């Protein structure tokens, strides 16, 4: 039988719809943002958007600094709370799958709803909205993203590694520091990435939980693209900065995990 058309249904073809989707909804918008960053309001070429952002008249860099700081603090708190929780869940995994569900359940509720209810609770308790409440909201929102990858890695650690460690003279604490934590490093890295990146680009949480007192990078981008300000150019520049930050984060994560391999290979 002769093939009449050149199109052959291979496994590759299954990816075409998604590739089309990516093209329309990711690549094209990125290109538009890139173009926008170099345009004035009346569509002529300019570099002013960059000047405006980096010259710090509008406080863009300060906002960026604040965002990074809150991102780091959120990630550190998430790790500090998440690791013991993930460890505990992994240890009693076989007997208690419901517990894991219990920690994932908040993810089932829309994050805006969660945040608004958090605010309502704070108001009811007469807690002053500010940095503290924003951090609480961030940790509350991103904790599952830290716990999940950690839990997955910790569950997959073969118990014989722990026994081998004990056998070679490690007490409970040393088993933790010398065996379990190093073996769960990939989970720690992906937990950090999954928490830090959304944390630095968040917007609604800070707005809602501080009554717009604390202004983060995400909020700034949101503001620039809103109809009242209508400064798409600066907003696009900020989006690009965000994109670069995310790429840098990913590169660092990849490098550290590769570094681990190299370090132990040496």
């Amino acid at each position: 039988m002769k093939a009449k058309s050149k199109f052959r249904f291979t496994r590759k073809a299954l990816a075409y719809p998604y590739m089309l989707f990516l093209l329309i909804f990711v690549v094209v918008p990125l290109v538009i943002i890139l173009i926008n960053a170099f345009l004035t309001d009346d569509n002529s070429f300019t570099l002013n958007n960059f000047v405006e952002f980096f010259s710090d008249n509008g406080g863009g860099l300060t906002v960026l600094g604040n965002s990074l700081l809150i991102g780091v603090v959120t990630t550190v708190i998430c790790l500090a709370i998440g690791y013991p929780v993930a460890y505990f869940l992994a240890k009693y995994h076989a007997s208690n799958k419901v517990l894991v569900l219990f920690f994932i359940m908040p993810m089932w509720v829309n994050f805006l709803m969660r945040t608004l209810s958090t605010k309502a609770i704070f108001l009811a308790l007469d807690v002053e909205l500010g940095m503290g409440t924003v951090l609480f909201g961030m940790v509350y929102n991103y904790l599952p993203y830290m716990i999940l990858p950690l839990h997955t890695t910790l569950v997959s650690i073969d118990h014989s590694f722990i026994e081998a460690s004990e056998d070679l003279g490690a007490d409970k604490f040393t088993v933790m520091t010398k065996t379990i934590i190093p073996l769960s490093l990939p989970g720690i890295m992906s937990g950090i990435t999954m928490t830090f990146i959304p944390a630095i680009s968040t917007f609604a949480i800070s707005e809602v939980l501080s009554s717009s007192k604390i202004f983060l990078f995400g909020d700034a981008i949101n503001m620039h693209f809103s109809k009242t300000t209508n400064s798409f150019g600066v907003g696009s520049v900020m989006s690009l900065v965000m994109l670069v930050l995310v790429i840098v984060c990913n590169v660092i994560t990849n490098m550290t995990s590769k570094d681990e391999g190299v370090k132990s290979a040496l």
Partner: protein
Amino acid sequence: MENIIEIKNVNKSYGDKPVVKNLSLNIKKGEFVTLLGPSGCGKTTTLRMIAGFEQPTSGHIYFNGKDITELPPHKRNLNTVFQKYALFPHLTVFGNIAFGLKLKLIPDGEPKPNKKGELVQKMRKYTKAEITDKVNSALKMVDLEDYGHRQVSSLSGGQQQRVAIARALVNEPEVLLLDEPLGALDLKMRKDMQIELMQMHKKLGITFVYVTHDQEEALTMSDKIVVMKDGVIQQIGTAQKIYDEPANAFVADFIGESNILSGTMVADCCVNISGHKYECVDKGFKRNEPVDVIIRPEDIKIVDVDDKNCLTEAEVLTCVFKGDHYQVTALTFGDERNEIIIHDNVEVKVGDKIGLYIKPFDFHIMHKARLINKVEGEMYDKGIVEFCNGRFECVSDLDEGTPVTVSIDFDDVELTDDEEDGVIGATIISAIYKGSYWQYIVRTEDYYDFFVDNDYEWSIGDRVGIKIAPDKLILEVRNESQE
């Protein structure tokens, strides 16, 4: 020689499932001891209790006379080579071997008196140079001198095995525990490692406790073999003793090939198998006691039918060349025709009549483990008795609630392929061919083991149903006050 490890009356159960039952074992300093048995016999659990990963449910373990039953693994002066090696993937070969050394504290100088006048031993850690030295010599011992910098994942199975051994031995333990360490290697590699392990044992002079299900491995390597089944030690002895004088039919069947036949002791030194009387060397049995007779295939000689040595005749069923011998299966003549396996150097034709000769001391006579199944039950109603969580019809007019002892002959227990067809379900845990029939041990849900003689073939682990004809149940009223 003194005992380095003493295990006294140790029991271990998971939930209500017993894994090790009242196990007592002494291991002498410098010995190569192998725990041998089929999977699920409790050998690994025993090793893990010595290592400290499992706590005995009851009983004690002594190490150099000191009770270590409750001691956590990191405080025990022994090291383990794990079944799947358990090498740390985040460390190099060097890092893996140095792991134990980095944690170890060693005496620093002579003990000095403190303010109160008590002698105090200062401790220190190994220096970097000492660790490097020790790791390098350990690598040299396992022939991996240039592999220190390698990732463990880049090594072959055999190399990983060597690293695991080096990692354990570098800590200079008094006892090395090995949990089926060669299971993952191919045959050739396994043979090489067996010899290397034996050489290491000789050179280091420390005690090895080795766990395996491979009888050939155990026979090759061990000074002492401990054969286990169902959490109970069946026999302890040297390789030769266990092979030549198995303690019971299970050991004989598990170690090497054997013919296991049923017979009766007619008199001292005379056993009757299927109507033929043979001279043997065993004494002290009751007259006409039913016994198991074990004959190794290589102990049977093929002779002419009219040879004066000919003890009995048999018809050849198969004859297969096995390199250094022929494996012949033959069917004997008699009340019951037994199928037997013979290893000999002569080739015979299928259908030939051959004569067989067996030296008197090659008949190994053993008490039968059990002569009849005896189980405690209770009358559920008139004509129905309840035992092992099942209600069986019986011929009896005893009143409801009467405690009874039920006896059932081995060949009166019927097994059904479909669990649903039996009154109760059970699992086959042992199958031994006895020349003309199979003897099974089937375990019920409440851990009663029925002995069953049956012509059909099942394999170990199969689920079967148990049925018993009402007139085959022998009931006896049990007097509870006696218990």
